[in-house]
């Protein structure tokens, strides 16, 4: 890395950024060419094993010190018992586990009815139908128990994440030093692959629901912190001063003025907590958490696609319901009642909900079906669908198409690309990324890129990291090939923009796991399935931000283009795209982050990258290795995040688009 640093310092001497970036690339090309000619010393191609510091062992040492010598394990085990008690209670209520308070399970009809009333209260008939319908579907399809296993963990993890998140958010807003400490940790946490959350959770909090709840909680905290801080900062000065002049003490000011005024942002945080918790709780299947995720994992593992599909639908329905309900809660404004409105009228919805709940609970005492839909009565068509899907996939037309796609992509594109990336010497790849950082971002970004990727090289997992990078890059490239044209076409009409944005919104609420289902269905257990699942996941933000970028181009500018006699194409290329580019870059960045997330999950299909190794660590207690692998993913993702966001912000500023 010595060469990079000297090169960087010469940037100050006046060589332009792009020139320097070009030089770096040239060095990389020379290195690669030397490697191809067989003239590059092996030590410059890959770091020799002997030079790789044993990070994993050091980390293990630190963890062991924390765990045993400092007694962290004793503490977490103590917390575990408390958490276990709460989880047992919710488990009893939701699906009748034989634990205190021994009154569950709540009949499915009662849950569905209450959900419908809540839906009606928050958003009228449509939400009532959605919320009630979701639970009716879940019961009828025979997935009530597993769905409730998932819900019982959510019911603990979401409030926990909310409380911790809002407290830390308030602290970060109040004390600058907390904010300064928390920020970098949050950005690492947000890029850390979920497998890295799982293993420590298992080791410190026992296998099963407790570890699942802890991993879910930790995973969902960051956006709550950020939204709380943001909301509190946005409270208007005058409202705060009015609080002061009303003689509020500090606590009163926080409780009565700041927090209620930041309601919108805090509720948006709650929405994100719920959605992230759901995404994570499904994934905790990998550490043996029973529920929808575990069932889906098992079904996909045995290639029962029909039943996987049914579970997928349930998960999607639950996700959409929770998302819509919490978003409706954000938008819900208090309505006043005329003076003298009787008590029951003010709390009509509450009374109806309680009434419905009691009614169905009593009903369930007499009618077995209202309490529980057993195996014999449910409408699951899983087996039939399994066969149907198998039959459809076995059709010649389908098979030849997917086979053709698979063949072309795999043999002509993906594998050559992967082999090429793997053949590039380590320093050359680092140089190229550094050059990218220098060209798009600046010196700071270049240093970050060089430093982060060097660390990845030092970790000893370079080849696996490169394979991860290859999956991400090829999937995002393909996603751009589909997502950008789709966004551009949709942005032409108001109607289609709205439709596609709604579709993107909805697709974004799906827990990522669900995206594996169609991928496996179509392409089986191959590299193409991995790329395909990442592709559809990453396409969502690309399309979405393309539309948003194009739609928010100021009307005067497009009108000016029209009046200058530009054709549609000229207008698009010369006016709209340049102005939309910074926004689109944000979408591109998200697509890359999503891809890094998805590629790890795709380990389930069978990959040879970091995710696969990570998944393997889950079986053991190899915390050090787990962390090193996780950090590798995080470092790569953060590099791209830093470079792209810097570019987007610079560009926005240059165009005068930032507010």
């Amino acid at each position, binding site marked *: 890395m010595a060469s990079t640093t000297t090169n960087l310092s010469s940037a100050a001497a006046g060589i332009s950024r792009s020139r320097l970036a070009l030089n770096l690339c040239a060095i990389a090309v020379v290195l690669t060419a030397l490697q191809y000619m067989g003239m590059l010393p092996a030590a410059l191609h890959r770091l020799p094993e002997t030079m790789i510091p044993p990070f994993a062992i050091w980390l293990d040492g630190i963890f062991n010190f924390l765990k045993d010598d400092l007694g962290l394990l004793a503490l977490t085990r103590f917390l575990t018992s408390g958490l276990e008690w709460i989880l047992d209670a919710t488990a009893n209520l939701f699906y009748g586990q034989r634990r205190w308070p021994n009154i569950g399970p709540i009949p499915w009809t009662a849950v569905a009815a209450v959900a419908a009333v809540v839906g009606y209260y928050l958003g009228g008939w449509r939400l009532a139908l959605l919320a009630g319908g979701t639970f009716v579907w879940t019961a009828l399809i025979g997935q009530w128990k597993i769905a409730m296993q998932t819900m019982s963990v959510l019911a603990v993890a979401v409030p926990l994440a909310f409380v911790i998140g809002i407290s830390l958010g308030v602290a970060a807003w109040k004390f600058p030093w907390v904010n300064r400490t928390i920020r970098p940790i949050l950005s690492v946490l947000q890029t850390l692959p979920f497998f890295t959350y799982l293993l420590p959770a298992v080791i410190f909090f026992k296998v099963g629901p407790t570890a699942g709840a802890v991993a879910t909680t930790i995973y969902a905290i960051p956006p709550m912190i950020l939204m709380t801080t943001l909301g509190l900062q946005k409270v208007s000065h005058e409202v705060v001063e009015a609080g002061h*002049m009303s*003689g509020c003490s500090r606590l009163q000011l926080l409780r009565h003025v700041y927090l209620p005024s930041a309601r919108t942002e805090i509720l948006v945080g709650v929405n994100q907590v719920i959605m992230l918790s759901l995404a994570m709780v499904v994934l905790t299947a990998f550490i043996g958490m029973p529920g929808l995720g575990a069932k889906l994992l098992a079904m996909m593992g045995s290639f029962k696609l029909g039943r996987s599909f049914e579970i997928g639908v349930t998960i999607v329905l639950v996700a959409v319901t929770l998302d819509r309900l919490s978003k409706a809660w954000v938008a819900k404004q208090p*309505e006043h009642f005329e*003076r003298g409105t009787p008590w029951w009228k003010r709390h009509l919805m509450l009374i109806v909900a309680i009434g419905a709940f009691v009614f169905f609970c009593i009903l369930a005492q007499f009618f077995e079906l209202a309490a529980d839909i057993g195996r014999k009565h449910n409408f699951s068509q899983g087996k039939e669908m399994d066969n149907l899907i198998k039959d459809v996939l076995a059709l010649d037309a389908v098979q030849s198409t997917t086979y053709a796609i698979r063949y072309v992509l795999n043999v002509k594109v993906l594998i050559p690309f992967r082999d090429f990336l793997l053949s590039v010497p380590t320093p050359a790849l680092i140089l190229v990324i550094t050059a990218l950082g220098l060209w798009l971002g600046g010196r700071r970004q270049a240093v970050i890129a060089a430093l982060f990727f060097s660390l990845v090289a030092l970790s000893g997992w370079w080849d696996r990291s490169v394979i991860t990078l290859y999956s991400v890059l090829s999937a995002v490239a393909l996603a751009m090939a589909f997502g950008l044209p789709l966004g551009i076409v949709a942005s032409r009409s108001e109607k289609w923009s709205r439709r596609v944005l709604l579709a993107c919104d909805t697709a974004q609420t799906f827990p990522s796991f669900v995206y594996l289902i169609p991928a496996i269905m179509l392409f089986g257990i191959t590299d193409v399935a991995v790329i395909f699942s990442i592709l559809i996941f990453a396409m969502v933000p690309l399309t979405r931000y393309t539309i948003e970028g194009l739609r928010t181009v100021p009307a005067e500018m497009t009108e000016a283009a029209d009046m200058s006699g530009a054709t549609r194409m000229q207008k698009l290329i010369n006016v709209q795209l340049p102005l939309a580019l910074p926004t689109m870059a944000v979408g591109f960045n998200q697509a890359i982050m999503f891809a890094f997330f998805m590629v790890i999950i795709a380990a389930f299909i069978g990959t040879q990258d970091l995710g696969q190794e990570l998944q393997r660590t889950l079986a053991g207690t190899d915390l050090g290795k787990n962390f090193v692998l996780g950090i590798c993913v995080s470092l790569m993702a953060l590099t791209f995040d830093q470079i792209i966001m810097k570019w987007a912000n610079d560009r926005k500023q240059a165009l005068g688009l930032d507010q």
Partner: protein
Amino acid sequence: MTDAQPVITCQNVWKIFGTDPKAYLEKMPAGHSFDQIREDGYIAGVKDVSIEVAKGEMLVIMGLSGSGKSTLVRCFSRLHDITGGTITVEGQDIMSLSEKELIDLRRNKMGMVFQSFGLLPHRTVLENVAFPLEMRGQDRHQRRERAMEVVKLVGLEGREEYFPRELSGGQQQRVGIARSLAIEPDIWFLDEPFSALDPLIRREMQDEFLRLQAMLGKTIVFITHDFDEALRLADRIAIMKDGAVEQCDTPDQIVLHPATEYVRKFTEDIDKARVVHAHVLIEPGLSGTGDPVDAGATVHAMARILVQDGRDAIPVAKDGKIVGAFSRTAALDLLVGLD
């Protein structure tokens, strides 16, 4: 009106914004101008202001945006901590108050109305008005009763269960006024209370405000950027520019004798006859005969007498007693706009 001890006294008050304003103020050479301070990277929000507010008086602080008027009033209520000088409120140096004493002061003595109302969006009208009472721990029943009283006072009866967003701007400001009056403060700060309202509503609210003041007789510091509003409401006007007070006097004096060029520009388009009162015109040495005019009458109100009367000097009476006389020609000059 101005005989008793002043309620608010501020002496050589400075408020400087920047990284280390205290240290900067100490080593800053005297007589530094606003622009010089800005060149050093600091902003002089309030610049060496000495002013007094008497009991029951309405002081209007007038200035364009950025002149420091809002900053000054926030120094009075210690929403801002001042950088230099002293502010005493009813004899207490407010910078020496502990947090608890400050809260007590605000809970019992001060009320403030804000330009954008500063209402709490999640509380109804009644709950907003009762908020200061709730903060000082009054019980629910009492505070509802008192809040209802003030809501009626500002003419919002029947709207007490509404939420702020369901009200018009004028109505929202009535809530703001009601809230600031709920604790029966002795000192009332109003920071451009009517600036966010459209002109017709503004006029109506000014009338309403004068009605309230006639009833309550509070000590008031009123901020505005509207010179007409200042003339209409004020006992005294302080005109601010770049953080400093250019002139502080009665409307009559400001109109008749602007202290600086800056102040004169404001007074240029003003119909002085509507501002100047008979007692201000009194010239020593003159003594008139015949029916006196009332000391509180404006030149404009006396127009008919001034034109039709033949006397050179017209006597002025206050509470039925002759206090002096003014020259009719001087008054006529004012009336027709000759200075």
